[in-house]
């Protein structure tokens, strides 16, 4: 950590950004754009399922109009960031760890260090920053797709037209739900990026080590995301009761 702080300070002193811009855009494309289909598809079906199940439960009481708000709040505040965090940890976190781990065991990381180039600017910062900044964008996609799935079920199963669905979402969702979701998504992105890069750079023991480290990276990232989600909820509920 001290070495990395030194390296960052040294780069800033020399007037260079603390990350390599070209690699940042490469990783942004990989982590962000590449994750869109998976996040969109999973969120769409989750939204669809959630509205279907809650709709059937609420219909006997005549309260099925609560479904749009329930899905929208549930996703923007909780499920969107959480599901996206888990998917990104599994898809991108694993890829980062495996890639950096392979570079470590094949001495590529050491070669970079031996040239006098710290691993932070070239390897770590572009990846962490890419996941950190792209995570909220993916969460927005997740929320929109979940709402879309819910809207379709509401229209065909619960007799709630699309425009009315939009109105119900608009009246039920509050800025605190969006703020909570956004804060969480940045935090989860940071967790996935840091854990996956750290586990990748600390690989030992060849191909088996890369496999072990990748598994451990995904497990740690997902567990940490879930724990942080709970802590965030405790804090956010205290701030916005």
């Amino acid at each position, binding site marked *: 950590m001290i070495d990395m702080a030194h390296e960052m300070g040294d780069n800033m002193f020399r007037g260079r950004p603390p990350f390599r811009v070209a690699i940042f855009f490469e990783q942004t494309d990989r982590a962000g754009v590449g994750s869109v289909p998976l996040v969109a598809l999973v969120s769409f079906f989750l939204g669809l399922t959630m509205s279907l199940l809650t709709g059937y439960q609420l219909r006997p009481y005549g309260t099925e109009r609560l479904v749009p708000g329930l899905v929208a709040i549930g996703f923007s505040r909780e499920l969107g960031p959480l599901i996206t965090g888990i998917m990104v940890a599994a898809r991108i976190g694993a890829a980062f760890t495996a890639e950096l781990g392979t570079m470590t065991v094949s001495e590529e990381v050491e070669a970079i260090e031996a040239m006098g*180039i710290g691993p932070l600017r070239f390897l770590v910062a572009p990846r962490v920053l890419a996941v950190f900044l792209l995570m909220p964008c993916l969460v927005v996609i997740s929320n929109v797709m979940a709402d879309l799935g819910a809207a379709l079920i509401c229209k065909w199963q619960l007799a709630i037209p699309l425009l009315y669905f939009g109105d119900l979402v608009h009246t039920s969702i509050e800025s605190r739900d969006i703020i909570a979701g956004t804060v969480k998504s940045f935090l989860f992105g940071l967790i996935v990026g840091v854990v996956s890069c750290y586990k990748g750079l600390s690989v030992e023991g060849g191909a088996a080590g890369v496999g072990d480290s990748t598994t451990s990276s995904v497990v740690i990232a997902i567990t940490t995301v879930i724990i942080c989600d709970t802590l965030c909820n405790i804090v956010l509920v205290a701030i916005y009761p």
Partner: protein
Amino acid sequence: MEEHIVEMKGVALAFGDKSILKDLNIAVKPRERLVVLGQSGSGKSTLLRLIVGILSPNSGSVRFKGREVTKMRRPHLNRMRQKIGMVYQYSALISSLSVRDNLALPLEELTVKGEEEIEKIIDEKLAMVDMQDTKLMMPSELSGGMRKRIGLARALVMHPELILFDEPSAGLDPVISSVIDELIISLTEKTDATSIIVTHEMESAFKIATRMAMLYQGNIIEDSAPAAFRNSKNPVVSQFVSGSTKGPILEGKNHGGQKK
């Protein structure tokens, strides 16, 4: 008196319970080609990593141009590393970057040179190792010998004062191995660089070296000119040079004066 470019005094290093280097002492003068010989796992590559500051010794001193490497902070260490080129056993080319980008990486990251000048340096270094045609290729498209040559070109781009070679001819056929040996000699002479080459291949060692050292059980047990090394009276060295199965190496005896 000429200043030593590398000086290691009383260096000891252990990984857990396993002692790799014990009170190692060696100094290298400018423009020397020092070949360090030793069995597999004797600590030859570790010695290179200590010089470049990738590893730190448990005790002892490692100096590069008179400056203590073990006490350097990261920015100073990085600046020192720019004066050292390292060629790895398996080349360690960055697999996600093309040959051109591998060579450009240190120039782009560590210098303020413009695009045109960087291209000129890359072309010049690729020409030195006779690899001009590979500029746009990816490392996965290259053979072992080609990768070694690109690794050598990458080590040269920053005009290093010291080049470290980790098993430069390992895994290559005899012809390509000779090509690499000749490249090491011609390039170090052209660039006036000092080089430390670790290997266990005797033929390459005698061809390249201006001085030879034998690392055995954590110590340098022989340090002499190639001719004297070949005729060494030390039984470990003579067994290693002859490649005989009879002798102290396989019997596990230490001819540095201690039991194993």
